[in-house]
């Protein structure tokens, strides 16, 4: 059943890519300047947070600019992918009502669009790495795996959100609030150590927290990812995708009527 669906999706790979690529182009209005503008937001955020936290808070984190940047990029991807994914069905109402193909194609392609958007930030990040002469080690091999988990979690969330957004108009506002709360409950601008010892284990229940911590360790600090973290990420990405998919397929049959 699942394999059959994956096979079907594979046969639509060209469509998924076309939708993702055209959305990407539309977002930047086909101009190089558009791409550059999109970098401004995360860079500005990086600058402000960096100035605030190094000068006012006097924190002692090593390579704080990179520490911060990686958190902003990864959290930015999650926020972008889920926001684009949430509207992927609603925005494509004219297609949904006129032709059939598996509807999760819209969600998958919107997540790919978000991924494309994050690539530019990653390039700038790589330039930072070179500029600050950060050595990379063999432990970098964990990074793609960690990113894959993040993508799967984002897809699972997007599937659920896109389906719910068809039926409930306030899902978008609720999700914005949750994302905002999540930003501060996740060690993005600070290390996990600022949480009291007994609360840290609750913070680590959030798979995104583990993803960001592991990504930092493997990319900036040249240390291997912890097996416990990898397992937790694997498990939670399966759970997120599974639940998201269940919600999506339960509601999918009524999309064309409700939009």
């Amino acid at each position, binding site marked *: 059943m699942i394999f059959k669906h994956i096979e079907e999706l594979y046969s639509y790979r060209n469509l998924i890519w*076309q939708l993702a690529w055209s959305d990407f182009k539309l977002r930047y209005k086909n101009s190089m300047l558009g791409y550059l503008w999109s970098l401004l937001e995360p860079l500005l955020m990086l600058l402000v947070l960096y100035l605030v936290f190094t000068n006012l808070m006097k924190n002692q984190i090593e390579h704080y600019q990179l520490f911060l940047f990686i958190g902003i990029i990864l959290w930015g991807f999650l926020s972008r992918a889920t926001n684009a994914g949430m509207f992927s069905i609603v925005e494509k109402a004219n297609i949904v009502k006129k032709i059939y193909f598996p509807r999760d194609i819209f969600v998958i392609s919107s997540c790919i669009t978000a991924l494309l958007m994050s690539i530019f930030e990653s390039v700038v990040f790589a330039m930072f790495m070179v500029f600050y002469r950060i050595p990379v080690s063999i432990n970098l091999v964990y990074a793609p795996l960690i990113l894959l988990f993040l993508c799967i979690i984002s897809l699972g969330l997007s599937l659920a959100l896109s389906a*719910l957004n068809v039926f409930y108009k306030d899902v978008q506002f609720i999700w914005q609030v949750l994302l905002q709360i999540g930003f501060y409950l996740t060690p993005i601008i600070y290390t996990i150590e600022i949480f009291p010892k007994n609360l840290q284990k609750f913070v680590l229940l959030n798979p995104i927290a583990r993803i960001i911590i592991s990504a930092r360790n493997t990319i900036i600090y040249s240390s291997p990812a912890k097996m416990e973290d990898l397992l937790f990420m694997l498990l939670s990405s399966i759970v997120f995708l599974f639940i998201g998919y269940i919600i999506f397929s339960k509601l999918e049959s009524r999309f*064309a009527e409700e939009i």
Partner: protein
Amino acid sequence: MAAIEVEHLHKTFRIPHEKRTTVFETLTGAFNPPMYENFHALNDINFTVEEGEALGIIGENGSGKSTLLKIIAKILRPSAGSVTTTKKLTPFLELGVGFQPNLTAAENVKIYATIMGMQKREINDKIYGIIEFAGLEKFKDTKLKNFSSGMQVRLAFSTAIQTDPEILLMDEVLAVGDMEFQQKCMDVLSQYRKDGVTIVFVSHDLGAVRRFCDKTLLLNKGKQVVLGNTGEVLDRYVYGGGNEALNSSEKQNESKIAEIEVKSENKTPMWEDKEIEITNVEFYDKFDNKGARFNSFDPMTVRIFYNAHKKIYDPVFGIALYSENGENLFGTNTELKKVSIDSIEGKGHIDLLIERIPMITGRFLLTVAVHTHDQKPYDWHDKQYSFDVIPTCRDAGIFEVPCNWKI
């Protein structure tokens, strides 16, 4: 082998009295289940379409035609029953699905062709042909938003016809565009027919249905009225045979007439000497059924009911036919046809037999009058009756001119 098999298909839409569109409303109303109205859009539909066959689906607005087509296309799910298709479906429910105004013509063709199920290599091979066929070579890198709607339709159409359909679902696509475009559509449809493509065709254009479809399904308010040979079904549809849809359109006509009557009474003084009153006019088709819709080139009878309040000698009955815009197309009376009526008294009727309706399509208005030989009117109903003519040929215009080509 059956390409499409529809069995006991039902579709019910649940229409909530008060729609809950937010999580908040849903949570607060959890103990107070919402009230629903069930709307049965389709009721027990059964048919099969054999491979290479063309099925027409006709019916009034709201009879469930498009819903049925959407269910076959898998866009909507049936509430009960099943639809089985054995081949690849290509729906033409709308042209240009997924067009993005901010992308160029070439980019849009790529996306649209992909949506329509074409493979990447095929698209790359055909893209210039598609743009050329639409006559837009010069504008291939122009953004779609700068195109006229005609250009957009042309682009969508030339893309859509590049798909290689096995089962084609068509919904009123032909209704848009000018004559030339409609002609192109017809040619493509004919070609698909020749190639043995299975076609399901929903249309109000009965002429097109008659030309292209082997079988026709007539729906009325979600129920399958009749399925069969196209000619028979169209006759049944046009001439009603007592179906409700026809009655409703008659009622509309009546109310229209009543409205006109009120107006004319207000405007014009009662200058008719109502010694003879025209009480009603009815139209009869070739099966002697009353109706207001006729196939072009079919026979028709106009029956004028009168009530002579006293014995009148030598009255003249006349009619005048108008187009919907009020142009006088034809007029005649009993005097001109050298028919003399000795005398009439009391209630009765007179028939005007039309052997062959020469009009091709449109709504026509009829004026009916009764007067003396020296034009002194007894009664006069100006353009108060109307009927529709449904095309059965491909010629254009209002009237058929009998003619032949010769080289």
